[in-house]
Every structure is written in structure tokens, then in C-alpha cells.
């Protein structure tokens, strides 16, 4: 109730993300709490798998030269599946696809959503009103449902192989992730923008006769970044989950891709009783990565909030 209760005294230094400009700075900030340190290590671990998977994995993803249904241990750390594929290698190799789709999908969503949010937020008025309603309408639909509908349609279109449509269709999951998250990112950026555009430094810029683009990108955008970073990391964790779910539902990845969701789906039912390891390891990988990203994004949120 007293005004100083909410914040302990102490001078605020430079804006966190300016201070954290180097990747090392971000890491140092995240290592402060055990939870976010753990989350970050998990994410880094998987990122390493994603980048160097082919060098690490002892077998190729669709190598069926080993005996099928071998229990974990020995040469096959995670056993082999019903086709004789090394589950350990497949889990490792699956990391890159999930990072690629979820990562780039989130990136595209963040870029487009930021543009949209900044412009409608700064413009205000009718534009904002209409865009706000559209965003609300989009947000009313569950992301998974939208994704399923769109992917369902795209899957059944047959394009000329190699044509641009086909290339687009090949990346449809990534694009769908981007699409369903654009309104969410836009909304976050918009609300930050609405708040920031009333600040006096914006008026100072207007009084200098600055262009709209200058004000949006030079004056407003930097202040949006902290909220954006938090949102992006949160989106990334949801995107991983969404990609895994879509993989499980068989619309995200084409067999024999070592997509984790697809692996879970492929080894369900009767196969689960025969080769539980073929399902459990990829499922554990999904769970671990989602938890890791969540812990990390909590840490990012805390780090950013610290800057006020």
C-alpha cells in the first residue's frame, strides 16, 4: 500500500536489452536463477542437437539395417523401432525439424506481428478498431484447429513438384505457425505501442516533425522489444508444442521424417506395448524441450521485467 513497497530502492541501470546486447549478457542474466538456468541449458542442449545432429547421431534417420524391436541398451541406447531404426538417432535428428519449423515460424510471426502491431497501435482510430476486431476474431479460434484446417486443405492439393506452390506447401507447417501467431504477437505489440505512444518522448519527436516511420521504429520499437522478447520466447514454446501436436496428428511431417510427434503417433496402439521405448523417448524429448523453453522464457520475462 505504501508507494515504495512494490519496488526496493536502488538505481535502475541501462535498459536491460541494451545492457544485454551480447548473447553472453543474455546468458548471464538467465543463469541467475536455477530454474531459468536449467531451462536455458535444456534449450541449448537441444539446439546443439539440432545443429550438429547429423554429426552426433550414430545412424541415419531411416536406416533399417539393425534388427527391429531391440530393447534399449548396448549399441542402441534407446533401442530400435519396429522397422529396425535407431530411436536414439531419430530423437537426435528430430531436434532440427522442430527447431526449424517452430523457430522460423515464430520468427516470421514475430516480424510480421511486430509490423502489424506497431502500425495499428500507432495509427489508432478506425484502423486500430477494425484490426483489433479481426485479431480478436482470429484469436477466438484455437490455434491447433486453424492449423489443422489449413494443413488439411494444403495436404490435399497436388502441386507440380518443384513449383513455388509446392515449395510453399512443403513449408506449410512453418507458415501456419507464423499465421496463427501473427495476431497474438500483433496484439501484444499493439498494446505496448498504445502505452508507449502516450509517453512524452513520442510527443517530443512529433514536435520535431519526425516522420511516422521514424517514430514507430526509432522511438517506439525499442520500448516494445522487452515485451516482444518475452512474447517471442513464449510463442516459441507454444510453437514447439503445436508442431509436436501436428506431427502427432500426422499433418506436420511426412514419414520417414524423424519428427517427434510423428514418432509418437507411429508407435502408438499395439506397437506401444511391443516397443514402448520408441514412443517414450520422443515423447520425453517433446516434454523436456517444452518445459525447458518455458523455464527459459520465464527467466527472460524476469530479466526483462527487472528493467521496469
Amino acid at each position, binding site marked *: 500500500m505504501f*508507494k515504495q513497497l512494490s519496488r*526496493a530502492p*536502488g538505481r535502475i*541501470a*541501462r535498459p536491460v536489452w*541494451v545492457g544485454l546486447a551480447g548473447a553472453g549478457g543474455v546468458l548471464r542474466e538467465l543463469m541467475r536463477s536455477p530454474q531459468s538456468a536449467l531451462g536455458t541449458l535444456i534449450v541449448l542442449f537441444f539446439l546443439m542437437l539440432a545443429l550438429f545432429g547429423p554429426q552426433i547421431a550414430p545412424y541415419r534417420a531411416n536406416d533399417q539395417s539393425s534388427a527391429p524391436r531391440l530393447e534399449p541398451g548396448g549399441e542402441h541406447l534407446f533401442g530400435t523401432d519396429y522397422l529396425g531404426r535407431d530411436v536414439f538417432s531419430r530423437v537426435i535428428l528430430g531436434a532440427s525439424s522442430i527447431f526449424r519449423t517452430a523457430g522460423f515460424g515464430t520468427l516470421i510471426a514475430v516480424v510480421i506481428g511486430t509490423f502489424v502491431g506497431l502500425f495499428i497501435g500507432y495509427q489508432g482510430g478506425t484502423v486500430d478498431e477494425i484490426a483489433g476486431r479481426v485479431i480478436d476474431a482470429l484469436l477466438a479460434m484455437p490455434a491447433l484447429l486453424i492449423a489443422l484446417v489449413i494443413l488439411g486443405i494444403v495436404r490435399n492439393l497436388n502441386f507440380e513438384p518443384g513449383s513455388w506452390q509446392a515449395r510453399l506447401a512443403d513449408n506449410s507447417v512453418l507458415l501456419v505457425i507464423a499465421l496463427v501467431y501473427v495476431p497474438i504477437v500483433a496484439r501484444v505489440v499493439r498494446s505496448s505501442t498504445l502505452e508507449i505512444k502516450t509517453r*512524452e518522448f513520442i510527443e*517530443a519527436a512529433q*514536435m520535431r516533425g519526425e516522420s511516422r516511420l521514424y517514430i514507430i521504429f526509432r522511438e517506439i520499437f*525499442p520500448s516494445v522489444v522487452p515485451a516482444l522478447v518475452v512474447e517471442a520466447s513464449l510463442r516459441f514454446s507454444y510453437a514447439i508444442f503445436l508442431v509436436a501436436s501436428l506431427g502427432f496428428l500426422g499433418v506436420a511431417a511426412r514419414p520417414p521424417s524423424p519428427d517427434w510427434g510423428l514418432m509418437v503417433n507411429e508407435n502408438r496402439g499395439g506397437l506401444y506395448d511391443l516397443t514402448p521405448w520408441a514412443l517414450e523417448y520422443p515423447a520425453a524429448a517433446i516434454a523436456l524441450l517444452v518445459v525447458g523453453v518455458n523455464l527459459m522464457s520465464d527467466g527472460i520475462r524476469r530479466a526483462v521485467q527487472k528493467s521496469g
Partner: protein
Amino acid sequence: MSMAEAQTVLQVENLSISYKVNGGWIRAVRGFQVEVRAGQIYGIVGESGSGKSTAASGVLRYLAANGRTELESRVTFLGEDLLAKSRREMQPVWGAQIGTVPQNPAAALNPSIRVGEQVAEILRRHRGLSRQDALDRTVEMFRRVRLADAEGIVARYPHELSGGMQQRVVIAMALIASPQLLILDEPTTNLDVTTEAIILDLVRELIRDEQAGALYVTHNLGVIAQLCERVIVMYAGEIMEDARVEDLFVHPLHPYTIGLLNSVPRLGQTKRDAGLISIPGTPPSLAELPQGCVYAPRCPLAIEICKTKPPLEAPMPGRLVRCHRWPEIARGEVSVIGREEKAVSPLAAGDLERERLLTVENLTKHFPIRRSLVQALRREQPAPVRAVDGVNLNIQQGRTLGLVGESGSGKTSLARLIVGLLDRTAGTIDLLGVEIEGSVRQRSREILSELQMVFQNPQNSLNPYLTVGQAIRRPLMKLAGMNRRQADREVQRLLEAVSLRAEYAQRYPGELSGGEKQRVAIARAFASNPALIVCDEAVSALDVSVQSAVLNLLAELQQGLDTSYLFISHDLAVVAYLADYIAVMYLGQLYEVGYGRDLFLPPLHPYTEALVASIPKMDPQDHTQPVRLSGEIPSPRHMPGGCRFHTRCPHKLGEICEVEEPPWRGAGGEHYIRCHREPDDLTGLQQWLLDEERE
């Protein structure tokens, strides 16, 4: 000293409070002590970061999750050790025995419960009263805090009440269970001066009647002088001085106290009289406290011994001071005022008139209200908010026009209309004889460069992600047409002009104190070498010691550059200090204009008179407060007819005030009053001002 026999309510000894920040413990309050007796109001005064609120919270054991009270601390309330109690045992203390009034009443009230219920609940819980009895007592209490229509107000929700009414409800809430101790933390800081005066009267009266002890936390020395019996001056978490109020104001012993008292402009003091005496530097960060005396880095009397920690000494009974050199100060052997601040050059009478820089005629801003469904069906257009309603004024070259008024008077809207941040509804603005466009978007670069602004809130006026250098460089390049190299050189010059070191160009606003930020904002405003700078509450958010330095800076810059100011503030003393002319605004219209000094001598517009009367005087002996404004400022949507001030005017003539717009009347020289009463008539009513002046 009849009070000496009064019972001790609260005894605090050696209270130390720490916060955990970034893994380390910061000692925000160190060795705080106080003894509050029944019926006594004990003030705690200090600037932001001095630990005054933290100390009060520590007494109450309301600390943030990252805060802790150190082991050696002792808080005894009515003979009981509060620090030994569990949270559960504290409940009756918090609920009934200690009342609290926070700065923000809205945060203390539950928005979804009727205010009467909230207050009555305390009685039902802690006094076991029935619902009806509790409500009856609540109505009675509401009457005592002078809430008009107390029966009606118990059934209202907090959002239906104005800030002043909310604060009265909170005071009623704090007092309802007849607590033995009241803790008030800046309860009037967010209120207008007219409302503040009423609340202070109320607090004084209630404490006297209830014979409770009170701790009153504030940054405002005037409030202390008017209200308190004793006062503690805090700085950087430590007690600097503890004295009876009369002693403190007359014979301050600590250099910091002396600095504080000197840096507040007294009503009627102007820049032509003398410069304000300010305290150099800024308070230290609690994380990096200086060795020895915490005030030494800013103290003009600091000598070698001040590198060791001064003890809290008692020069005489009932008085404490923490300074190595207090005996010399007491004997008058040293003076804190090292150098006389330069006054702005005095003016010969004929010099006052200069060419008009800016002329505003019939400037009007009405904010349309969105139609409700019913209104849309009835094809009615709701009355707009008449924020600014036909204002005429002019500003001369190199002069300052001060604009005063309560919040809601439209002064900020007027400023924003002039600089073009708002589109006007009607009226014209002439700059150097040329009519200019209404909106910044339409204004040419030349006009933009002539009109700049210094904003109220230093936190918000600088982009936290741009360095000081970038912030100042941009207008230089954009408006003054400089290239990068010229601009960088000019940045250095401007920083120097606002007394900041060149290295500040590389810093981010987050690394600056409030005063430093405001200096940067001033440098930025001056970058395009404008003819007029609008300062909207430019020093209101600053601590007094810093405020005086910024006021001095503004005065110096004006003299050097011949820039005009439109200086807006709710603080009449500050406006009077800086302004050559003053305009008084109420509900979108001007009611009085005149030279600075004119505004404190009769005849005055009754509204101006009330403003002057409401300011808490810096003199503990002076309790003359004959004029109080009743009621709240009306909503600008439902504007009173005739003279807009008639609903609150203590000198209302009669029906004519309600029906007819008052005329402008000359009160001698360039002094005009807009009132139905004759100036002579007003002079007669305002004799008390002359009496005061004579003292």
C-alpha cells in the same frame, strides 16, 4: 510542555530495514528511531529515496517480499513488541489499533464494494458491532471527515468519488476504530492545493480530538510546518535531524536541513530578487553509500572529519542531529550558503514591456464525447468537454508567462494547443505576427524549431533506449539543420549549458537521476534555439533540492538566450518565482492576469485568493488560513453558467454570478481580474493578505 506527560504510543529504536536486490542486501533504513506520544503529529520529511516511507512501513511491518527488518530493531507499540508478533497476531493491530492513510486512496479501497460497507466492516470485525450499528457509526465518521451527504456516500463505490473524497473516506476508515496511532504516507501529494488544505485542517483536528499519535510522512516542508509538532529529517536512510518544528525552521542545525529550507521558493520570492539556493549533486545510491557522513559529498561544509561517520547527538534535550559540525553551525561560525546565487538582472519599470512573441486569441478546445446509445437514438449530441474555452493571451520576447490552476483547469490542454500536440477547435495562434497551423503535422520545420516543450515527467520525457547524446542530437540535425559532426559538438555545448559533464552524452536515461534527466530534457528543448519553450509542470516531479537548481538553470538560460517561457505549474510559489506575468486559469478560462507580484496583493480574484491561502506556509507560527474552497472542481462537461467559479466562490455576490459571464476589470497597470465584484470591493475582502505582507 504539557505534552511531555502524554502517553508514549510508539517507541521505535534502532530500526534498520534491508531489501534484497540483485542478490545483495541493500540497507534502505539504518538506525531509525522515534517516540510518538498521544495527540502528537510527528513528521518525517525527506526527498525520494530518503527511506522515510520505508521506515513508516517498517513500523507497520508492511514490507515488500524482498524486505526484512534487521534483528537489532525494536518497535514497541503500547508496550508490546510488534516485531515479535506473528502475522496473525498483527491482524488486530493493523485492523484497529494502527490506522494507515496511503498516498493513493484508490489503491486502499476495494473498487467493487460500497465505501460504507468497507469502513463498517472494520467495526464489525474488530469491534464486534452489528451491521446497522457499524453503518450508523460510519455515517457519523463520514460527517466528521466533512463528507457532504454522508448518508448518500456510504452507498457509493470508490470510482464514483473524486480523489479528495476518496482520501477522506480512507481517513475515515483509518480512524473508525479509534486507533492509538495513525500513519499517513504523503496523503495529500496527489491532491490539488485547495483540497490539500482542507485535508490538512481535517487531520489536525481529528488527531487533536482523538488524542491518537500520528506519523506523517511527506516531502513538503510547508505541510510539516503547518501540521506537525515534531519532525525528523531523513536522508539516504538515516536520521539527519530530529527537532520540534519551531526549532527546526528557526534554528536548523544540519547542513542538509538548511539546504532544504533554502531551496524551497517562498511565496512571493522571484528570480529578480535572488537566485534559489540549491543543494549541489544528487542523493547517493543506497547500494554505494559514501564512507562516513552520507551527506558529505553534497555538503558545502564537509571537511576531513566528515569522512568518518557522525553519531546522532543530542545538542539539547528533545533534539537530535547527525553532524560533526553542528556546534559551529549552532554558534553561527560557519554558513552553509557558500556563494550567493546570482539573481536575474533586475528590470527597470520601462523594460518590462517587450515585443509580443506569441499571441493567442479565442483559443478553444472541445473534446467531443462519444454518444451513448440512448443519445444516438434521440439524435442528441452530448455536451463536449470544454477543456479550453476562448482563451486570449500573449507572451513577450524573453519573458515568462506563468500559468496556474488546479488539475482539470485546462492548463495542460492550453499548452498542448500552443505547441500543436492538440488540434484546436477554434481560435488563432500568431507567432511573431504570423498565424500558424494548429497541428505539428502541418507546421513547417521553421515553426517547429521555434516552439519546443519541456515535459512534466522526467521518466517519460526521454526515450529510455536512446542515449542522452542521441536525444539531443536529433533536434539539432532535424530542426537546426546541422550535420552529424556539428551536432555532436553542439551536444557537448548544450550539456555544458545545463551543467552536465560531456560524458553524459553516452549515458542512457536509466543511468540518470530525475534532475539530470530534466536537465537533458531542457537541453533538448533548447537544441533548436526556439523562441518559446513551454514548460508543463517541468519541475513538479523533482525533489525540492533538485527543483531549485533546475529553476535557477531555466532562469539563467532565459537571460542568456532571450527565450520566452510558458511556465505551467500547480505550485503557485514556483510559478511566481520564475514568471514575469502570471495567468490564473479555472475550468478552461482565464480569470486573472498580471505581473508576478500582483498576484499576492489585493485585489485578487477570489479563486486566486483561495489558491494563495491554501499553500501551506513555511512558517510554523503562521496559521492564518481564512479562506477555504468548498466542494470539488466541477466537471468540464457540465460547466456552471455565468462565472464558472460561482459554485465554490467565498465572495459570491448573488444571482448575477450564476447567470452572467463576469467582465474583465482593470486592477491597476497590466493587472486584470474577471469578476463581478469591483477590484476595490475585493481589496476590502482580502485585508488578511495585506496583514501578512506587512509582517
